[in-house]
């Protein structure tokens, strides 16, 4: 599978990245070089192998997931960041909300 300029433009669009023509040319070359190496995975027959999503529960004879059992906690409200602190790094606010450019043009 060869990645083309068109593929890179499509993926850049999905990822909300803007690329200059030079960047785009470089990315085509880089992605092809990296994916060429990644194609090595096709040497392996994995048709009967479960995908692994989380390492620890796959391990330690089944006790893995119990180690995380407490991750289910009572639904109790606790203090979080104040509005002021949460907004403190925002590029633009109205003092109580984040402000963004107009979403719907009329």
């Amino acid at each position, binding site marked *: 599978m060869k990645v083309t300029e068109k*593929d890179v433009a499509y993926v850049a669009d999905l990822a909300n990245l803007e690329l200059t023509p030079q960047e785009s040319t470089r990315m085509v070359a880089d992605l092809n070089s990296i994916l060429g190496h990644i194609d090595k995975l096709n040497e392996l027959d994995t048709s009967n192998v479960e995908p692994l999503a989380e390492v620890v529960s796959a391990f330690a004879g089944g006790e893995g997931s119990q180690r995380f059992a407490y991750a289910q906690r009572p639904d109790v409200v606790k203090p979080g960041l104040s509005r002021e602190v949460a907004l403190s790094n925002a590029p633009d606010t109205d003092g109580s909300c984040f402000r963004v450019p107009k*979403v719907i043009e009329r």
Partner: protein
Amino acid sequence: MDINVLTIDSARKLVESREVSAVALAEAHYAQIAERDGVIGSFLTMTKERAQKQAERIDRMAEKGDPLPPLAGVPVGIKDVLMTRGERTTAGSRFLEKFVAPYDATAVQKLEAAGAVCLGKLNCDEFAMGSSNENSAFHPVRNPRDTTRVPGGSSGGSAAAVAAGFAVATLGSDTGGSIRQPAAFCGVVGLLPTYGRVSRYGLIAFASSLDHVGPLTRTVKDAATMLEVIAGRDTMDSTSANVPVTKYAAECGREIKGLRVGIPKEYFGEGLDAETREAIERRIDGLRKAGCEIVNVSLPHTEYAIPVYYIVATAEASANLARFDGVRYTTRSAQAKTLADMYRKSRDEGFGAEVKRRILLGTYALSAGYYDAYYLKAQQVRTLLTRDFQDAFTSVDAIVTPVTPTAAFKLGEKTGDPMEMYLSDIYTVTANLVGVPGISLPCGTNREGLPLGIQILGKHFDEATVLRLAHAMEQEQL
């Protein structure tokens, strides 16, 4: 007092005996930083007021004769991917150049609660993506052992600071080798704790199934002490494990006789530099003489680890970095007129080339039509990699390997070809993919005087055995 050779114990003793105050200790480190970090480039931000306040608090305790906590007065540095409340936290990215952290990472909070004096924030590859620290948006870091060479990455600032006498210990993060590889390049100790051993609350996420927080230090015992402080469950991180914290420092010095140490042949094949191989073989011989049983093991899927890693890590990164959108985190392009513009232009201006490359690769691997071929396939091979380790650990207690194929390379040597840079992670990424703990410790120097490293990997949550072996190796110069 020679601050270049201070350890946690010796620094703490100076403060406890009031031979040197915590304030003076911090000042001595700042003086060394002022003198030499212009060349090395390990710090991005100094946190002098914070350090002063903490050092004064420790000195008041010492004066009153109060019992001092385990890191009392110990000057530390924090990789700039960990949040420090009220201090700039950049992740080495232009995007976060002006970001001020609203809270402390749990690991930072625990270090300070244990008395550590946080001197500042350490340079790293942008969003921890890199193996040489050349991807920092601000400036590269130079290796204190040879300033024409890289310190490794992505925790390059954390390793260089310990090696250059700027801090007694530092925190780093390791997603594919980012603590262990720079430790090896700079001749210090770097510890990768088990996945879930240390809370990641307040760590700026790169790849969540692979990210670990861990220490870099001058000695194995210091790494053990640091781990003892930062380990443990944290209700703010649901991936932190509910496993009791061992007295790790007490493991250092325990007998290693009878331990079974595995040598995986796949880690000693083509591509490994001859001097590194010799140095490691000498250490293995030493372990044998010390009464360890040396067992040949096989981790047959090792050659697939890099492809798996660069799919999984980039896929997760593409999701994690979606939050940098121009709304919440300081940067918004002044050119943005529409909402779509705001996303694109802010990300374009804020992210460097390597970050864009990885976001694109990850997005590609997750996109419709390619998900099965890349992401699913990679996660299946990840299962095979974990089985390799499960099998090996039925016959051994720990595994010894190289950390890197070569000693530190020159600045600019590998920046032209990303794949060549990625391949330098070949011996480190697997531990992250399977979640096991590991340590990188110095094992001599090559003919050019550059440090070489050796890696010990252990079973899940068995940092104790890893540290015990590493300590014996360090003490006996095995």
